[in-house]
């Protein structure tokens, strides 16, 4: 009957209960949505940094990622099966890198050339999805080039145009050769759009006079946020001359952004729920004050203070649970809409490059369990906390004083 009594007490002032419930539902639903969008933004940034260029993990000669020294290469046929044949690894891409001058007619620009196998690279990065003109490299492409939109604009080239690349080769000679523009990508990341060019690995090995050699193997995993632990696990299986770095080591600023995300998330949750909690506290205090006389009667009839406290807490718990159910349903529905459809802001905003990643001009959510569990759990907790003070007040009343209250 205590449960029945609590449930009926909730509905005795329907308007007030519905107003409080709607505040609780809206706050938790919006919080789930906001955290989903926030996670989406973070995921976009992380993806722009890792899935457009770096990969989640990179194997290279020790020190190569610090100075990108052309001579820190290793054989492409080095057996790394112990590392690369893991379940968590979704794809690997062998790469050779070179920096040099790219020219078209009278225009020239410094550029970073990344020699790749097109089929492998597609498993690690997603530049093929950012094409704005032409096509991605074909598997058997001999001298195709896919370059960033900023670089293409500077060189004034389009698909089919010829480019000349000049650099220093490993044997001390001047390496140069012709490329043909296959496609143009635009990621929103100014660094990549203004300098990066993807070329066939064999073509670059030939230009640099580094046959059969690569600088790195980029790896994509199914656990990007767990990349550091994976790197640690795979390290022992590598030859001494090689090292494996996770994206956090290559992009320390991005690692800080991800770390600060959890703090930011808790700050948002705290601020929103303090406001919601005060609203609930107000409602329950009013409800308890209004029923002072009734609590006196209940205690006169033999109800113990602990039972009175439990009854009021049960009321807050029931309201919290009800709000939680509807809040989660609405919040997840809104997040799903934002995940599947989202809002495109490219008409009014341009991409922002920050900490090695790019914040895209779109509102897009991802569904993460923690973004649902944290708001739901906090809502229930705040309901109980907000109910505790009035419940305690009710339990401490002297029946003889309470009964006299009008």
């Amino acid at each position, binding site marked *: 009957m205590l449960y029945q009594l609590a449930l009926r007490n909730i509905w005795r002032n329907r308007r007030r209960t519905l107003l409080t419930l709607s505040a609780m539902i809206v706050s938790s639903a919006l919080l789930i949505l906001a955290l989903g969008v926030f996670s989406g933004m973070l995921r976009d940034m992380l993806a722009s940094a890792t899935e457009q260029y770096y990969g989640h993990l990179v194997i290279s000669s020790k020190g190569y990622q610090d100075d990108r020294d052309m001579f820190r290469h290793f054989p492409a046929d080095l057996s790394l099966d112990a590392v690369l044949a893991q379940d968590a690894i979704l794809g690997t891409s062998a790469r050779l890198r070179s920096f040099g001058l790219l020219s078209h007619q009278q225009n020239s620009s410094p550029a970073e050339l990344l020699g790749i196998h097109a089929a492998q690279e597609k498993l690690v990065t997603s530049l093929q999805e950012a094409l704005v003109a032409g096509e991605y490299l074909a598997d058997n492409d001999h001298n195709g080039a896919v370059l960033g939109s900023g670089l293409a604009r500077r060189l004034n080239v389009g698909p089919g145009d010829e480019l000349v690349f000049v650099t220093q080769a490993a044997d001390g000679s001047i390496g140069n050769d012709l490329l043909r523009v296959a496609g143009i990508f635009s990621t929103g990341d100014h660094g990549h759009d203004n300098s990066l060019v993807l070329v066939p690995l064999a073509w670059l090995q030939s230009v640099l006079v580094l046959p059969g050699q690569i600088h790195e193997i980029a790896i994509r995993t199914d656990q990007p946020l767990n990349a550091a632990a994976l790197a640690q696990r795979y390290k022992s299986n590598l030859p001494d001359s090689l090292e494996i770095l996770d994206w956090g080591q290559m992009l320390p600023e991005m690692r800080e952004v991800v770390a600060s995300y959890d703090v930011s998330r808790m700050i948002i949750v705290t601020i929103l729920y303090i406001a919601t909690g005060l609203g609930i506290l107000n409602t329950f205090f009013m409800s308890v004050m209004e029923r002072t*006389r009734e609590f006196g*009667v209940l205690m006169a009839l*033999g*109800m113990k203070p602990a*039972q009175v406290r439990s009854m009021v807490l049960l009321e807050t718990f029931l309201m919290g649970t009800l709000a939680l159910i509807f809040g989660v349903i609405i919040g997840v529905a809104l997040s799903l809409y934002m995940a599947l459809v989202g809002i495109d802001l490219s008409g009014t905003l341009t991409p922002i490059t920050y900490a090695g990643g790019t914040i895209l001009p779109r509102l897009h959510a991802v569904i993460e369990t923690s973004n649902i569990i944290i708001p739901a759990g906090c809502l229930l907790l705040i309901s109980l906390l907000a109910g505790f003070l009035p419940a305690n007040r009710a339990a401490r009343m002297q029946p003889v004083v309470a*009964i006299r209250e009008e």
Partner: protein
Amino acid sequence: MALIELQSVTKIYPLGNQEVVAVKDFSLTIDAGEFCVLAGPSGSGKTTLLNLIGCLDQPTSGDVWLDGQNITQAEQKTLADIRLNKIGFIFQSYNLIPVLTAAENAEFTLMLMGIEKNQRRNRVRQLFAELGLGGLENRKPSDLSGGQQQRVAIARAMAAQPAVILADEPTASLDSQASEELLELMKRLNEEQGATFVFSSHDPLVISHAKRVVRLLDGRLVSDQ
């Protein structure tokens, strides 16, 4: 042995910087099965005495004994247990729980005592039949007349078959006909079931029905007839 015994009881309430003596050096003994009224004008200490007997308040000095147990210094939890198991309350303004039906109100104390649902229902059905409340089990208090509400309050007070039923001005909110009916009913319960009733009232009708009238004035015993 007396059911209720007050020995030189004094109750003083603080009122701002002053003190109000509600009951002074008051002694009284009430036996089981009595139908007793504490009579007196407003402020004479009737309600204070009922509160002391009903374990809702504790005396400033003196001793209160209920069913052989000294309750003067008992803890709140013990007092709550005594109220639940030995005392039934009937209030002036009924004080039914508005969100519960008439039957649920009546079985509330039984529920607190942990009595099983079927047993509770049977007891309440029997009481409602005796009190002329048959057919009103599922009505909310707001759908009942004053007289009906007070009958439900009596059912609630009697449900657990307490040692004593305390009624604070039970007819104050009723018209004369409903008051008469209620008093007859309580008298019948007293005579047929041996229930002990202690009233507070200044209503001549209530006083005329009482078998024992304890008159008070300014917190002191004036007469006991």
